[in-house]
């Protein structure tokens, strides 16, 4: 029976995802909601992405320097940091930070909207609740997470530059040249953005689905928030492996 329940749940989530895509019709109202959501879940996530990116850049630089120095290849540190960030760390960690910051808030908001009859009221006013409250959040996440990933990389590489050049003493010209030679625009840089768009969409869909279908109680909202973070994080980690295997040479 758990298999049947899981299959049914998966089917419902798939139909919900289709309904989000079907409800995504461009209109003045849709774009107004989209801009508001981009500000709420994107712009307001910038501080944690900045801090996260900087510290990941610092940590990878320190770890990489200690390993590369053993082989006399310390000046290759920017290649390690660049490839590590673009290929894996930035898309995944940005998505995980986004899920913790914005995914949980999407699930909580929709859960509370359900508990306070706001979603029911929209339906009774002949307004499709999915079009009104879910679609703008989904597209905002698809747009924001790649941009946040770029921001994460910028802060990570800037922090790495500071540590490698000003603390460790690697030549600044070498740092940038090695980075440029190692990171390919199409296969590393753009793929990071593609992965991020998938992660953003996944995070928003999972958070919206559990929030939208939450039990209309305080406990239901709490459960939905937890489920959003756990399920979306695990899905992002799984999708990351699949996408890395498919997209990177």
């Amino acid at each position, binding site marked *: 029976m758990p298999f049947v329940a899981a299959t049914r749940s998966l089917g419902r989530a798939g139909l919900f995802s289709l309904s989000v895509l079907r409800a995504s019709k461009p209109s003045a109202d849709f774009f107004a909601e989209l801009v508001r959501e981009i500000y709420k879940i994107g712009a307001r996530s910038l501080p944690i992405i900045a801090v996260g990116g900087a510290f990941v850049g610092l940590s990878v630089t320190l770890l990489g320097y200690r390993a590369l120095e053993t082989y006399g290849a310390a000046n290759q540190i920017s290649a390690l940091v660049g490839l590590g960030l673009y290929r894996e760390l930035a898309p995944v960690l940005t998505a995980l930070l986004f899920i913790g910051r914005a995914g949980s808030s999407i699930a909580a908001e929709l859960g509370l909207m359900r508990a306070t009859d*706001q979603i029911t*009221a929209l339906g*009774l*006013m*002949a*307004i499709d609740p999915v079009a009104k409250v879910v679609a703008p959040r989904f597209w905002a996440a698809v747009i924001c997470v790649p941009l946040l990933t770029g921001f994460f990389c910028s802060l990570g590489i800037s922090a790495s530059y500071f540590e490698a050049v000003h603390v460790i003493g690697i030549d600044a010209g070498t740092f940038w040249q090695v980075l440029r030679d190692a990171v390919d625009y199409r296969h590393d840089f753009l793929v990071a953005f593609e992965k991020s768009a998938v992660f953003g969409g996944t995070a928003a869909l999972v958070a919206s689905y559990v929030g939208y279908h939450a039990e209309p109680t305080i406990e239901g909202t709490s459960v939905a928030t937890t489920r959003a973070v756990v399920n979306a994080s695990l899905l992002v980690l799984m999708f990351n492996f699949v996408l890395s295997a498919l997209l990177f040479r």
Partner: protein
Amino acid sequence: MPVATPTQDIAVRLTDVRLDRGTRAVLSGIDLAVPRGSITAVLGPSGSGKSTLLAALTGELVPAAGTVEVFGQSVPRRQRALLELRKGIGVLLQGNGLLTDLTVAENVALPLRTHTRLPRPVIDRLVAMKLHAVGLRTAGDLYPRELSGGMARRVALARALALDPPLMIYDEPLTGLDPIASGVIMSLIARLNASLGLTSIIVTHHVHETLPVADRAIVIANGHIVFSGTPSELEATADPLVLQFLRGEPDGPIAFDTAERSREAA
């Protein structure tokens, strides 16, 4: 009595309707005809299935048997047709359902912005008129969290009236309101029904506040309609089941078993 009313004068008709929640029948054998222009009070104890009946009228719940017609049209099951039907039905929910991230004026404007192509100044004017009708013309810039319970209910009423629906459904409009706010809401319902030529269905357990404005009353208990008639007929009834409900007596044909009744969708 409803059978004698000509079809075109009927706003809502339920014929031998059975409504289930899960596998359990909450209401069965429901026959009801609501005349156009009337105020009908649907009364009954908590958990008797009043809100389930309301869900059938708005198409949220598909009847397990029988037919539900609104203005001569069967309540459709297809989502698009259902949304179209709902444009002609205003619903005041027990929890108001005001969008908390919108101001009062934006809440009232929402159905107008979504379903009409009216220019912004016209919508602003209509919103002001709707808020004026419920006595809240100066509250447009407030957010729902800044309103009292009675004010929020009136804003929700203004929003439900935004598209001038011919049918208004009120789900427990007096719950959580003090006697003065209750009096204001009931007089508003009566005044709007008369002045706008609406048909109103009030789902409530507040008997004494509702009967003075109602043209007809039905009482639901134990899964059936146990009374249908005018308010004066209701007050004169000798049915022990109805009398227990009207007098608020704990002992009688209606079991005071909250666990049992709460399982029936309220």
